[in-house]
């Protein structure tokens, strides 16, 4: 693959990461800690929402973020025609 395509691949990767990591920061530190008090005024299924985020929601969102990342990167790899991956390790 030529250098131009490789740069384009990297830019797309960075853009995806920026979006996902922004959501990550808002959920982990916002919903879980800084807005927890405000969210606690809303109740869902017996849980004050801020408390639910801190003990359940953040973890589920983290899992979803990695799932989206893996899925989108697979698609990106295919789009750029990457079908063989490096499997070399030192000395093998």
């Amino acid at each position: 693959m030529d250098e131009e395509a490789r740069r384009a691949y990297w830019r797309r990767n960075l853009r995806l990461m920026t979006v996902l990591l922004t959501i990550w920061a808002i959920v982990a530190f916002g919903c879980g800690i800084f807005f927890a008090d405000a969210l606690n005024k809303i109740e869902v299924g017996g849980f004050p929402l801020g408390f639910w985020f801190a003990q359940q929601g953040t973890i589920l969102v983290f899992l979803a973020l990695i799932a989206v990342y893996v899925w989108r990167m697979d698609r990106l790899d295919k789009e750029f025609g990457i079908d063989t991956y490096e499997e070399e390790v030192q000395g093998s």
Partner: protein
Amino acid sequence: MTDIQLWTLIFVGLTFSVYIYVAYASRVTDTAGFYVAGGGIPAPANGAAIAADWMSAASFISMAGIIALSSNGYSGSAYLIGWTGGYVLLAMLLAPYLRKFGKFTVPDFVGDRYNETARLIAVLCAIVISVTYVVGQMAGVGVVFSRFLGVNTTVGVLLGMAIVFFYAVLGGMKGITWTQVCQYSVLIVAYMIPAFAISAKITDIPVPQIGFGKILEELEALQAELGFGEYTAALTGSSQLNMFLLTATLIFGTAGLPHVIVRFYTAKNVRAARYSALWALFFIALLYTTAPTVAAFAKFNILGASSTGDLASQSWFDTWADVGLITGPGGEAVADLNGNGAIDFLGGPGNEAVINNDILVLASPEIAGLPAPIVGLVAAGALAAALSTASGLLLVISSSVANDVYHKRINPLADERKQLRVARISMAVAVVAAGYLGIHPPGFAAQVVALAFGLGAASFFPVMVLGIFWKKCTAAGAASGMGVGIVMTMAYFVWTLPAETAPIFLGRDPIMDIAPVGFGFIAMIVNFVVTIAVSQFTTKPSAEMQALVEEVRFPGQTDLVARHAQTGDVG
């Protein structure tokens, strides 16, 4: 021998035999197998191994207790968010690129990307972090043995050492990985069964993650009645800030702990490394979303019993009071101090019982009235959690010594057989040393485990991320950033930790109310600033190195990386 001891013996014997068989079946004959399992572990198995590696005695035994038994149930969430959030960073910022890089250890990456000074600083950090961490695991093994089987703590640690010695020395990373897959299965089953049973019993909903919403209202009423804080209330002011700092330190520390990072070298390829991170967090989330439910249900049961005056008549209460893990307010034996005919467990004045954090999970099957075999299974699960983490840490210690110091610095010409022998010997020495420290834990062991996360965040995380995402990050920048990060973290610990636990601690007041466990995040930011600033004025990496970094960002096969993995040569 009681029923519980018999069943514990059966489950521990059974699981240990499985570990020995798996270790024997996956013994290795080359260094790639010993350090990174030949880089050929499929993603789901690697994910389960990472999860077992990650979830230590603290996650399994202590975490639910920390959440339940502090006055406010919400404040323990720092551990839930902090010990899972780092995986998002690992998946996107480190795992794929390290796998592409294709080396053996974390100092390997630092040394190859930067220079030999940086490698040595990295070796030092990796060893300090892993040693502080492993001591706690070995001590945990001893505690489980002594509580459940009534054997001496020393005998327990020796038994644990013997089993780790067998599979780690024989099988290296390959033996450790496949054993960890088994250990994960044991620990998750042991954790989930009591949780599901308790939820079904109290709420009729067998899924505890949903069921525990049904008891929160009653739990709040009990908390208020007995003088505890509001269970679900969020923190405000300086305690909110400290919770943020602790959470952030745990998150970035997770992404900087060498025994976790190194697991991504064991994946088959870049794609498998990404999937490993996904599987790992999935397996971890099963336990981490269950832990707060175990906490809430146990607190609910305990407070309910205390409110009706029945606490002392619970069977588990006596069991744990006998071994001194439930005591009176001054650490003496439990007694009915006010003579009202009941033991009162209260959140304020008049409290007659102090319950140790560690018994909550271990006692949860008994609290729910489950039969003896389940109690035995929980003991085996706790041992699996402690042993799996210990073996991952020991591998980091031995590979830092054998690969980064012996092979890279002392004898670069050593052949495969000689390297493998040195790796096995350093593993054996590390196991024995960890066992010794587990039997004679230093007085300040509890405080320094928190230091491990601070150090991980303040040393490795910034230089690894910048090494991949910033081609012009220089060796001098990385070395000074790591140096400043470690020194700052260490200095703050020496400044604030209680003076009576070790002669070097000063026991001064924290600066601006910042708790020492949350300081790693601040030191990490300083590391970033220093690394970037110094990189502006020092010699830029060679054109070849910059080209190599560009290739690391690309998951397909590339020439430079392949040649570099084979020969260690950049040009």
